[in-house]
């Protein structure tokens, strides 16, 4: 027997005599030993800089579907910074090129490009209030994918709808004043010259004349936040974002007219653990009835549920109840419900974001479902791939290019710096 074996046998005997062998098994580990194979020096990189003031994006977008073709390039530039204490400016502008094979270019008779300013505002902040003046978007209402209360900012339907309506919103020139007092907020919005939603870039003189005839819009919003709850009351005088065909007795023909109406609204968000319950209730006065030029008041209600699982899956479901405009002269508007569902989740440390948006219902019937995969390859490059299916009555969605189509596949390559 070797010396070490003798020593081990001796020590084991001592161990049993002292009762130390009943020590917890953790004693088999030496937690203080060196661990050099695990040495790590994080790669050197430049320390965090002051916030960058600008952002530039370039993207190439294509959609191919049943009778649907989009082929577009977009260059956008954003700039924002504090000018001095209490003053801040932001610019967001973009230039879009509609290539010859794009359906909007085909309708326009050839390729063209469109320059747009999405945001250009100056913000001043005082003791407990701020004012924001210039081109901006104002988004009220709590229920995602419904627009019972979200009436102030028009849509740009020349943008492609994938899984978020955000891309479809267009800023307009306005003044926004907001004051804070403890958990209360008061917001005032004035728009001296509202815009209509954009359906095509070749809208024509009649459309522009109609837009020029719109009156100012204003709105007041009072919001307070409690533990787990946000409540808002809204009173507004607004112009509709889309015109309605009405009968002209003089010409015995149909003209386009825009409803000017009062909007009273209540918005509620209640958090119940992982569940968010969202409710928007709106009363719209003087809604123009298509073909008859009569007006009537209307209630709209939207209910949404949003649930985030422990695995960070984001589910959203909602229903928006409103009066659908009549399809034919002599008909009355019918109550209808538009249902929506969305899901989203980030994978691989947010490098891959998957999302789905579905909407169906309404009268005339309309339905669409889009699945989107957004992958970030590097700090600057990302790609998007979306598969959409839409199915609608022939009479539905005449204003939205994509809605009558069936299957379509969209791809986008984006560079951002």
């Amino acid at each position, binding site marked *: 027997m070797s010396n070490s074996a003798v020593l081990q046998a001796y020590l084991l005997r001592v161990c049993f005599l002292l009762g130390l062998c009943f020590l917890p098994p953790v004693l088999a580990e030496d937690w203080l030993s060196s661990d050099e194979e695990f040495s790590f020096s994080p790669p050197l990189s430049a320390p965090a800089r002051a916030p960058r003031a600008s952002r530039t994006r370039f993207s190439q977008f294509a959609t191919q579907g049943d009778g649907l073709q989009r082929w577009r390039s977009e260059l956008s530039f954003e700039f924002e910074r504090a000018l001095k*204490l*209490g003053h801040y400016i932001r610019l967001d502008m973009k230039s879009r090129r509609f290539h010859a094979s794009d359906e909007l270019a085909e309708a326009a008779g050839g390729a063209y490009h469109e320059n747009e300013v999405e945001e250009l505002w100056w913000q001043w902040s005082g003791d407990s209030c701020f004012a924001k003046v210039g081109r901006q978007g104002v988004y009220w209402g709590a229920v995602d994918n419904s627009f019972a209360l979200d009436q102030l900012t028009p849509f740009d339907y020349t943008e492609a709808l994938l899984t978020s309506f955000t891309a479809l919103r267009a800023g307009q020139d306005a003044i926004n004043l907001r004051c804070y007092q403890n958990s209360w907020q008061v917001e005032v919005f004035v728009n001296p010259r509202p815009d209509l939603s954009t359906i095509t870039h070749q809208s024509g003189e009649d459309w522009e004349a109609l837009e020029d005839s719109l009156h100012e819009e204003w709105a007041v919003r009072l919001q307070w936040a409690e533990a787990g709850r946000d409540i808002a009351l809204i009173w507004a005088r607004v112009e509709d974002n889309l015109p309605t065909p009405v009968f002209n007795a003089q010409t015995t023909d149909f003209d386009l007219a825009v409803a000017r109406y009062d909007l009273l609204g209540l918005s509620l968000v209640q958090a119940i653990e992982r*569940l968010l319950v969202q409710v928007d209730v709106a009363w719209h006065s003087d809604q123009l009835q298509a073909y008859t030029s009569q007006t009537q008041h209307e209630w709209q209600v939207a209910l949404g549920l949003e649930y985030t699982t*422990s695995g960070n899956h984001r589910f959203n479901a909602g229903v928006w109840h409103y009066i659908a405009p009549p399809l034919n002269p002599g008909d009355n508007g019918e109550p209808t419900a538009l249902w929506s569902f969305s899901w989203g989740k980030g994978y691989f440390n947010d490098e891959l974001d998957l999302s789905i948006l579905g909407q169906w219902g309404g009268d005339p019937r309309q339905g669409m479902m889009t699945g989107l995969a957004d992958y970030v390859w590097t700090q600057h490059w990302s790609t998007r791939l979306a598969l959409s299916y839409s199915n609608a009555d022939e009479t539905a969605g005449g204003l939205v290019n994509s809605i009558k189509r069936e299957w379509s596949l969209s791809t986008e390559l*984006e560079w951002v710096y």
Partner: protein
Amino acid sequence: MRVLSVLLFGIMTVTVNAQPDARAIMEKVDEQQRLVAHQTLTRSRLSSCNFARQQTGIVCTEEPRVKVLESYSRQRGEQLKDSQSISIVLEPANERGIGMLTYSYDEAEKDTESWLYLSALGKVKRMAAGSGDDQEPVSFFGSEFTTEDMENGKTDEYSYQVLQSGPFKDRNVWVIEAKPLPVRIPKTRYSKLLLWIDQERLLPLRMQAYDRRGNLYKRMQFDRIEQHNKLWLARQVSLFNMQNQRLSTLHTDNIVQGVPVSSEFLTQRTLIDFAFRESVLAELRPHFE
């Protein structure tokens, strides 16, 4: 000799177990971490990459993804166990401007509240966060860190035991095992934690977390340890996820501590009133160390 070393360490551990109170140590560690987070503005880089072990040590096998965040936090309540924080993403460019405001409470029945500023929509949205009872940890800005790795003030939800004491990387440490109590189990993905606590500075030098099957799950390494305002903090924390072979490193490039701001700064206003936010931050940033 192996048996001898086991025996000697066993005797040492028995001796140590009789000395320090592990809970008292961890409460002091936690108190210091809460004070570090109180009235503190930081600018940090959060980098993540896949890693591999090589002869020279651990290396990133790809270009790390870097996020730059600016955050202000303060502790509230009698024992500073409630917290309020606001974080704004400065980089990368495609996430710039996203902001999050969070109120979290020590009281288990009280829901965490958070609001997200969606820069694409210019709108503040309340987020569903859940209560302390059902709150499973989620990833911190897409990194390997989770909200559980970042929180403090939860010492009463663990049982502690000193396993060993002695020198570790030129510092005297206690190696402390933390096991979640029943109140903690639904909220954690870890079956136990091992912490190497610097005896003099009362902050961890290393931490290992084990999954529910008892396998090594994550390993954290604390570097660039400095003293600010008489408080010790690690300005570089690396987290190795041993199961998916990814690592994240949180570099605190700039920090200013003990700077109170008006309570209005930690409200929804700061998410949307940029002029107000920049006015407050402009007064704090010159004090960055």
